[in-house]
């Protein structure tokens, strides 16, 4: 039994006089009167202070943005109010005087009830996997006692699969459950991208939890024909992205959050209706933790109205030390607009683009590229960024647009290097009748600090190598340049990982435990072999229509298949290092042994060549 449930239930008092409830330490009445008087004085002093009008911050924002902007990492705060300190449990019956400027804002909350699942379904669709609608699908995350359900689709929900319960229990409930693991980090990244995408409706958007977006749409709804039309458009566009959403507009973040989850479809709540509308919602709508909601329900406070009817003083004393997420009084104040909750919107990612407007149409953009590169690199240097991907776009006189794109192995703002990457790429641009506008934009940028790696005026090898990798990749394509790295495996062809080349290569691991050839064939070549005994070394073999006599040999070295990676019927290999009569050293293997039950007479292959 929880110790909190032993507390006496709070009964909403009939009269409004604040009476301290009989707790273990009753407050003397004269102390209480003194405290109330001091608070009232403080409040009057605060209300009397001049306050920033909500419109002023908007008017300070520049209308036209420059072509490049570098974002500071500090979050922007919506022009809500002068940042007031969070009041600490104002123990007053009526609370602070109703703050009109706070209630004058319009806040929209988008809630995505099935965000992870819909992302996963889209990714599966892109891979070509189709799932019927009635198949129960669930995504799991690792919990304290094994995996727990993180997201479900509608079919799984109808069969009783609950979010937060353990996977083994839900498997027992629904044996056909199709299960996969959720990628919560990618979900958050996708939501962050969606936050930037939502800037089409208003400039202040921020992530709200792990499946929601909050937007300050004050004054921007009329651009879309009013709030109802705006909500309809948002919902349509989100469903075109494959996301189901529930939305609401309310004067405060808390109220919009509650209505998006517990209200009707696309609900709009005006400021005067706020107390009545909120009173009917359950206490769960207050953004409290599960334990606090349970506690409130045990205290008999089922709805927000019940909670609002409790004297502030009792709530303030009960939850004096609780943090925000467990404090019903602060959450209630936020919902009712008595407590400011500015939306802290992240800065836009920096964009770098320069353009060159030509007096008359030309056919070849090469001559303009050096100046464009210089200008772009100047902008990136001023902001401390380097380009990973560049795009030259030409706008033809007949309205067509074509472009060429290059990528770099590491961020760079070296103008001559970036220009050289376009060598040969611009020939593929179809100029048509000529073009009169060229833009050069860095589509992917990364932070690039100015570093000095050496003191002796020598070049930094990594930077030089990165430039070489860029040039080779730009001309030969990304697949041509590879880099082998050692990997722990007994199978010779799996002991190397051929990955895309980067400038930062891992050091070579050279601990050759046994004799290995210096050349390996991509596909082992079959040879015809003469041998004295089937399990023994070859005496003579025919490879590429030439007959080789084996003069010396070493082996066999037996390499067993990797049971965790190979198919069940894979045979073991016996490798022989042989030297032929003309002095060439070759690596041969016999695929399996006679009588291993995995095939006929074993075949022989040449797999490599020694020095």
């Amino acid at each position, binding site marked *: 039994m929880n110790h909190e449930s032993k507390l006496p239930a709070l009964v909403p008092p009939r009269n409004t006089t604040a009476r301290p409830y009989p707790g273990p330490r009753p407050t003397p009445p004269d102390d209480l009167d003194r405290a109330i008087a001091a608070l009232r004085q403080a409040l009057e002093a605060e209300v009397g202070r001049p306050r920033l009008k909500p419109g002023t911050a908007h008017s300070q924002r520049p209308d036209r943005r420059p072509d490049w902007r570098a974002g500071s990492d500090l979050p922007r705060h919506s022009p809500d109010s002068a940042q007031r300190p969070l009041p600490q449990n104002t123990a007053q019956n009526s609370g602070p005087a109703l703050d009109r400027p706070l209630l004058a804002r319009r806040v929209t909350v988008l809630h995505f009830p099935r965000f992870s699942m819909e992302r996963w379904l889209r990714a599966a669709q892109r891979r070509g996997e189709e799932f019927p609608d009635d198949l129960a699908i669930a995504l799991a995350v690792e919990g304290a006692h094994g995996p727990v359900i993180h997201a479900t689709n509608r079919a799984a929900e109808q069969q009783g699969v609950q979010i937060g319960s353990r996977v083994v229990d839900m498997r027992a409930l629904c044996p056909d459950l199709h299960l996969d693991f959720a990628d919560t980090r990618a979900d958050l990244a996708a939501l962050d991208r969606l936050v930037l995408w939502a800037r089409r409706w208003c400039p202040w958007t921020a992530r709200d939890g792990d499946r929601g977006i909050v937007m300050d749409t004050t004054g921007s709804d009329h651009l879309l024909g009013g709030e109802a039309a705006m909500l309809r458009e948002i919902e349509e566009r989100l469903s075109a992205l494959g996301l189901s959403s529930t939305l609401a507009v309310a004067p405060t973040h808390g109220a919009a959050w509650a209505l998006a989850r517990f209200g009707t479809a696309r609900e709009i709540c005006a400021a005067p209706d706020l107390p009545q509308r909120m009173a009917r919602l359950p206490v769960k709508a207050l953004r409290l933790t599960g334990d606090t909601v349970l506690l409130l329900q045990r205290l008999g406070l089922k709805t927000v109205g019940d909670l609002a009817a409790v004297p502030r003083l009792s709530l303030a004393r009960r939850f004096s030390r609780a943090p925000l997420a467990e404090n019903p009084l602060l959450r209630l104040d936020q919902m009712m607009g008595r407590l400011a909750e500015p939306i802290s919107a992240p800065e836009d990612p920096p964009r770098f683009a320069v353009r060159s407007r030509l007096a008359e149409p030309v056919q070849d953009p090469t001559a303009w590229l050096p100046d464009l590169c210089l200008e772009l690199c100047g902008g990136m240097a001023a902001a401390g960024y380097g380009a990973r991907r560049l795009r030259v776009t030409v706008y033809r006189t007949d309205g067509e647009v074509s472009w060429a794109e290059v990528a770099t192995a590491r961020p760079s703002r070296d103008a001559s290097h970036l220009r050289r990457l376009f060598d040969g790429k611009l020939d593929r641009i179809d100029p048509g009748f000529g073009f009169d506008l060229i833009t050069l934009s860095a589509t992917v940028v990364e932070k690039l600090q100015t570093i000095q790696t050496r003191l002796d005026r020598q070049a930094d090898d990594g930077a030089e*190598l990165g430039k070489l990798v860029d040039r*080779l990749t730009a001309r*030969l394509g990304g697949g041509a340049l590879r880099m082998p790295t050692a990997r722990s495996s007994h199978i010779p062809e799996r002991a190397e990982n051929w990955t895309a*080349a980067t400038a930062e290569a891992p050091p070579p691991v050279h601990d050759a435990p046994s004799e290995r050839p*210096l050349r390996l064939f991509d596909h082992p070549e079959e040879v015809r072999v003469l041998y004295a005994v089937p399990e023994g070394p070859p005496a003579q073999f025919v490879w590429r229509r030439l007959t080789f006599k084996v003069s010396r040999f070493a082996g066999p070295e037996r390499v067993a298949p990797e049971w965790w990676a190979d198919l069940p019927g894979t045979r073991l290999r016996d490798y022989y290092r042989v030297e032929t009569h003309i002095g060439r050293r070759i690596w041969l293997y016999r695929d399996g042994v006679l009588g291993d039950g995995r095939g006929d007479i074993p075949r022989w292959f040449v797999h490599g060549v020694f020095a």
Partner: protein
Amino acid sequence: MHSAPPRPKTPTDVLRSRLRDTAMTAERGTQATLAEVFSEQAVDGAPIAFAVAHLRADKPVLWVQDRMSRRETGRPYLAGLPVPLRILHVTVSKPADLLWTMEEALGCPALGGVLGEVWGDPAVLDFTATKRLALRSEAHGVPAWLIRRAAHPNLSAARERWRVDSLPSLPDPDDQRAPGLPLWQADLFRSRWRQPGQWVVRHDQDGLSFEHGVDRPDVSVAPHDTAPQSLRI
């Protein structure tokens, strides 16, 4: 931004320094230049091991193969290389791309060497192309090795031209039936700075050693015209 790379030597600088250093012997082992290695047999590991043994392991090496070389002779295998290398491997389909890649890479001072494998006698690999490679290699101090398979030693500006083949190996001291330390027959048939000659080469912990014969009766050594001497690089 990074500090700028050192200014590459112009061909004039190279020639001037060579004039100053009349004793070419001091420069022989350290001068980075273009060398070609031929082989009688198309599939033989000896020319590769010979070239790799000349490279330094402290910097990465760019290894270019054309498609035919890769299909016929396989790809480099890290665990078996005589020197532990960091490899950047490029597969190209045309010999012109191979030459362009080598030329680009020779301008990068971060590389320890550039190794190209060409199959046959492509028309683009002529005297001019090899001269460009040689000058660029000397100007930037990056050694270049061209491994020629199924090719004829036509006109070329490579400063050193080798013909390397496998010889029967030394006996393994632990196992009489097994092949031991490999031996190669190296024939320097054209060189700009030293006498051509023929050697039996082996590569062990101490590096490459060139000898005019081995003390083993069954190894056939080509007749030599110069006085027997031992040379170690």
